[in-house]
Structure formats: C-alpha cells, structure tokens
C-alpha cells in the first residue's frame, strides 16, 4: 500500500514539475517535447489507477498524435513565445485563485480516495457493469462493454466529434490551399537514409497487424477501435515521414480518405438503425441474435469498434496530411 502511495505521489510530483516547466518555457519545441513526456507520465499514472484502456489511449494520443501535430504546427509558425506582459498575469492569477479555492473547498466533502464505500462504488451501477454485464454481454473487459454497449450513444458521439474535427481541419487547411509547384519537390530527405527506409518498410506490416490485434482483442484486454485507429494512423504517419508525403498519398489517396472518414459514423448509426428495424431500441445489439443476446452483443460491439477504427484512422491520417501539406508548400 505504501509503495502505491509513494509511486503515486512521485508521478504526480513529476507531472506538476513538468507542467510548471512547460508554463515557464518560451522555446516551444522544448515545451512540446515536455508535453510528450507529460503524457507519458500521465499514462503511467493511469495504469497505476487501474485504467489500462485510458493509459493506452493517452499514450497513443498524447505522446503520438498531439506531439506530431504540435511539431508540424511549430515548423509552420514561430517556435519562440513572446514575453508575457506582467499585466496579463493578473486576471489569470485571480481566476486560478478562485477556481482553485472552490476546488479545495469542495475536496473537504469528497469521498476518500480509494475507499470501497464511496457513492461511486456503492451505487447499483457498479454491480451492473462488473457482474451483470458478464451475463448480458459476456465480455471480460467491462470497459469495452460499457463503452460500446451500455453507453454506446456516448461513443457514437465521440466518433462524431472525431469526424467533426476531421471536417473542420479539412475546411481550414484542406484542399483549398495546395500550390501546385510545391507538389513537385521531394522535400523530406529522410528517404535517403537506407536504415530508416528498410526499418520502416519492415515495421509497417507489424504496425498494421498490431492495430488489427488491438481492434479485435479489445473484448479481452485493453484496446479497441479508437486505439487501433490511432495505431493505424501512426503507421501511415511514419510512412509519410520517411517516404515523403507524395508516396504516402499515393498509397492512400485523398479521395479514399474522404470516403473512409464518412464511413465510420454511417456504419455506427447504421447498426443502430438496423436494430430499430429489427424491432429493438437504437443500438440494442440483442436484436442481431434474438435467441442469444450475448452473441448479438458481440456482433454489435465488433461492428461499432470497426466503425470507430476506420474513421479514427482516416481522420488522424488526413489531419496529418493536412498539416504536412502546409509544411511542404510553405518551404
């Protein structure tokens, strides 16, 4: 128990120290690298708090996607922050004091950390999600069953948020600004390094295979559509970085990406509509196999996880392409 507290406090202290350093740092490249570190430590903390799925996602998103995007933007803009005028600090300090004060005030009546008798733990929901779900859905990873079935609508919403982000980035950086001359130059010279080229070529199948494993293994262990999608995307990002954007976009043309972005929400909502047509409620997967509810749930969960995977991979890749195309055309 004490080791747990010790590790917990240490990780939190590292997090706070990193956050403070980031806030004081004016070189934004360094700050970006520190945010990656911050995410990595956060992921460790999530593991410590038994949230393995969340840790997986935070590692993939915070260390991977966010960092790549931030670096891309830094190469497009200035990487040095101007000095913050003293006057600006005051409102921030006041807001932080009030907000922090309210939170500390609230913490006096927050339940004890880790106690098994908190309202969260004693609510009948706990039993539904941990025990009842084994009969209703029959998937060991309860996070997956809550995510994809009990709270399937939230997950549809989450997928739509990703879709929205993809559309928004396309609208902002998309096909509009694409100077033709920029496409002629092969800018990224990483491809000249044989080691990189060969290693990337060898890694690609494994990355994609791992993504598929994560997608289909989400029922039994940490993982699922979102994590798989991010891994898929990171495979393409790596390919694009080493072999150049043109090659990457030949493999995955823009038009295909457009379709894939839209396929996910349509498929996910389509599953729900199919359930309605089969006589159930929206997203009631039981209707897929009327005799064996658990089997129906399995089919439904697999379908929606695949829908998430496809759209997340397509959105993340096209967001990366969007930023990277800007980088190339601005040189």
């Amino acid at each position, binding site marked *: 128990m004490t080791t747990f507290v010790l590790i917990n406090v240490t990780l939190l202290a590292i997090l706070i120290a990193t956050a403070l350093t980031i806030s004081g740092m004016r070189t934004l490249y360094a700050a970006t690298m520190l945010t990656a570190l911050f995410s990595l430590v956060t992921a460790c903390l999530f593991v410590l708090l038994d949230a393995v799925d969340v840790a997986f996602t935070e590692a993939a998103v915070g260390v991977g996607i966010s960092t790549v995007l931030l670096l891309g933007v830094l190469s497009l803009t200035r990487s040095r922050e101007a000095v913050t005028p003293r006057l600006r600090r005051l409102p921030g300090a006041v807001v932080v004091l009030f907000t922090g004060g309210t939170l500390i005030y609230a913490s006096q009546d927050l339940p004890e950390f880790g106690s098994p008798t908190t*309202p*969260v733990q004693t609510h*009948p929901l706990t039993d539904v999600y941990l025990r009842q779900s084994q009969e209703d859905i029959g998937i060991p990873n309860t996070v997956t069953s809550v995510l994809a079935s*009990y709270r399937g609508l939230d997950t549809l919403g989450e997928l739509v948020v990703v879709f929205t982000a993809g559309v*928004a980035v*396309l609208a902002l950086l998309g096909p509009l600004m694409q100077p033709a001359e920029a496409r002629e130059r092969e800018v990224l010279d990483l491809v000249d390094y044989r080691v990189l080229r060969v290693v990337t070529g060898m890694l690609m199948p494994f990355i994609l295979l791992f993504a598929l494993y994560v997608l289909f293994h989400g029922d039994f262990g940490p993982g699922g559509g979102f994590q798989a999608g991010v891994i898929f995307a990171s495979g393409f990002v790596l390919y694009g970085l080493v072999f150049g954007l043109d090659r990457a976009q030949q493999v995955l043309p823009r038009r295909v990406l457009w379709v894939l*972005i839209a396929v996910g929400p349509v498929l996910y909502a389509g599953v729900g509509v199919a359930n309605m047509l089969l006589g159930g409620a929206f997203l*009631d997967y039981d209707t897929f196999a009327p005799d064996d509810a658990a089997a129906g749930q399995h089919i439904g969960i697999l379908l929606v996880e695949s829908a998430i995977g496809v759209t997340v991979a397509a959105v993340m890749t096209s967001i990366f392409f969007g930023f990277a195309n800007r980088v190339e055309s601005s040189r």
Partner: protein
Amino acid sequence: MTAHLPVLQVLVPLVCAPFCVLLRSRTAAWLLFLFAALASLTCAVLLAVRVGGDGAQRYEMGGWPAPAGIEFVVGAFNTPVLLVVSAVAVVVAVYSRRSVTSEVDARRVPLLYTCLCLTLAGLLGLTVTGDVFNAFVFLEISSLSTYALVAMGRHRRALLASFRYLVIGTVGATFLLIGIGLAYAVTGTLNMSDLARRVADLGDDGGGNRALYAAVVFVFVGLAVKIAVFPLHAWLPGAYAQAPSAIGAFLSATSTKVAIYVFCRFAFTVFGTTLVFGTMPIDRIGLALACLAMVAGSAVACFQTDLKYLLAWSSIAQIGYILAGISLATTAGVSAGYLHVINHAVLKAALFCAAGLLVLRLGSARFTALAGLGRRMPWTFAAVVIAGLGLVGVPPTAGFASKWALLTALVDQGQWAVVAAVLASSLLAMVYIGRIVEVAWFREPAEPGTGPTASKAPASMVAAIWVLVLASVYFGLDATWPAGLADAAADALLANGGE
C-alpha cells in the same frame, strides 16, 4: 416507428452530416441539410403533440434501463426548444442557399453544410438527453462544428473570433466536466433523474455537502460561458458578426438558447430548486448579472458602427432578459424566460438574415455602406425596423409580449431594481434601433457610386426574412401558442421536471 421519435430527432441530422461529405456536391449537401432540418421539425412537432397528449416521453438507448444506459427525455420543458431550433434551421436552410454561395468559397460549401448538420444534431441532442455526460458530448459536437463554421467567415478576423471562441468555449466545457465529476463523486450516477433523486436524498440543502455546492458552481459557470452571460460574453460578438451571415443567423437564434435550456434543466430538475435558488444564492447572482448584461449590452450596442456587431451586442442584453426571468424561479418568471427564448430567436434570426442580405447586396453591413439606402431598399430596411421594434418591445410586436410577461413577473416579486434595468435597457434599445433608422433614411449616401448592386435580392432570402418578421408580428398579436408552450414548460420544470 413513433416510439423512436426522440432518437430520430437527433439521428437524422447526425447521419446527414457524413453523407454531405460522401456526396461532396454543393447542391446535394444543401438538400441534405434542408432535409435534416425538415425532418427534425417534423419530429419536433410530432413529439410536441405526443407530449401534450401522454406527458413526457422516455427513450432508452440500446434497451438498457436508465442509470446503466443513456436515456433521452422529451417533456413539456424541452419541446419548445426543439421546435425553435428546428424551425429556425428550416428557415436558415432556405436562406442559406444563396447567402452561402456568395460568401463562402465554393469548395468549402459542402463542408459548411456538414458542419451545419452537426451543429443542429449537437444542439438537438443536448436538448433531449437525460444524461449529464452525454450532454457534455453533444455540447462538444455542437461547439466543435460551430468553431469551424465561424472560421469560414470572409475576413481574417473570423479566424481570430473562432480561435477565441474555441479557447473560451473549451475552458467552459471543461468547467462543466469538472462539475459533472464532482456531482458524480457525490452521487455515483450520471443519469439526470437518478442524480436528482440522490441529491434530494442528501437533504433539503444538499446535506451541507460542499462538493455538491462546488459541482453546482462549476456546472453553472461552464454553462454561463456557453450562454454568454455578461462577464463571460467575450466570445459572442466576434463569433456572431464574423461568421458567414446564414451561420450568424442560425447561431444567434439557437446556440445560446439551448445553453439556457440546459441551465434550466440542471437548475430545476437535477440539482433542484431548493438547493440552487434557496440554499445557494444563484437567483440573486443571476438577477444581478442579468441587470448588468441588459444595461451594458444595450449600451455597447449603441456605439457600434457595424449592423452585425450591433445585433450581437444586443443579443447579450436580450440574454439578460431571459436570465432575469429564469432567475426568479417562479412559474411566471420561467415562463417569461421561455417566451422570450422563442420570440428573441425569431427576431434575432430575422435581423441577422436581413443583415446578411445587406452584405450580399452592398458588400458589407457597416453603417457607412448603409447610409441613405432606406428609400432604395425599402423592404429590407422595413424588415429591420419591424424586427428592431420587437427588440425594443414596442406593442404589438412579439418583443412586447415577452417583455410584458417578464415585467409582470418581476413586479410580482418586488424586484424593482431589475424592472428599472429592463426599462433602461429598452430605452437604450430604442437608441440603437433609432441609429439604424437615422443612418438608413436621414444620412446622405457616402458616395454616389455606392448602393445596391444591380442584381435583385434573391427570392429565397427575402422569403426567409419575411417569414420570420411576420412570425414575430403574429406572435405579438396572438401570443396564445408560444405562451401556452412557455407556460407548460415552466410548469413542468417547477414541478421537478414533470417526470
């Protein structure tokens, strides 16, 4: 299929969005948005009829019973909001065809309609959901698509407006998330009805639970950002004025209104009237902020030199009226608030649509461009003035009906200071509407060369404007229908959700 109405209400616009991307044609995307708007209006009307007949409708997602799964709840308290949002969406859909083509790059148009579908779906979902975390998700869908829509404005200032809205909006949403987290820590549930039960179990004053008080504070501060309550309004003028005209019209009529509804839902049916307005001084804070908003918003509006900015600042003042009604926490006050939600949505949509027509024909809605054009564009300016008188609250316009209801409710409670603020704000509204009249009719055109372009005003846009203006006049002459909806909503909310 009628049992599925609550989910169809949200699902149709949500599914239209990816199809806009798949089809990638301007006309197809526009038709899809029009279809989404018409379908959701149909759903809203059918739901309103059903709610009127058999009371609140509940829909359990995935067939999972409530606290385990997510449920949608449609009752008398949210049907008016559904009707307003989807009716405005239909009018804006008609209006947007020409307006958008003239203001937005052709290649972005399908994406614009995609985002409009998403905003519509997000706002409707936020209205019908009965789960606090699901509300956060829908809030983010509508916000994220709104940021993209605002950024599509013609000037580079649109980008800045969008970025500021993004930062402020995300901080607001995160505050809401903290509030939800604190409430979850205290009760262990996310379902609104279940949450209300468990909060009530803690005791009348929330059992003195300080985490619960903080939850109320965080949820309301987060929502106040989205409502644009006075000191947290900084994002609104830029976002509404810089967005493409059709978008400005849609947002000004819907997004803050839905946030106000969510505020009511949390205040009356989740945390409970006694806790929020009895134990905690939310009513007094609300009234004070409302007064500030009314006076400051109208005062700043008087100094604007761009019609769109003027309208945006006037929105901040009008939000003050709505907030004042709701903060009274009496049936009459809440009903007046709802009535003004309906009337203001119609009036502001009409005004922003008219401003958009001016932008189309004059290239800008700045006063220098409008000078002396009252006689050359009589119909457009007539629409502006009629809807503007509604904002002032001159009888027999719609604005008068709701302002009268509000004043009666305030006098009943002896809130004389607020009454004074309402009257002061109305006088200031007279001033800014008077300025438009002065510019349009009594000022000399800046240069002889300026004036409306030869092209005629598109019939679709004119029709949209006049439908809204006539609706506002009709609601002023015969307020039975909107007032009936508002009364039913207020009764349902104060009867603890009418669930």
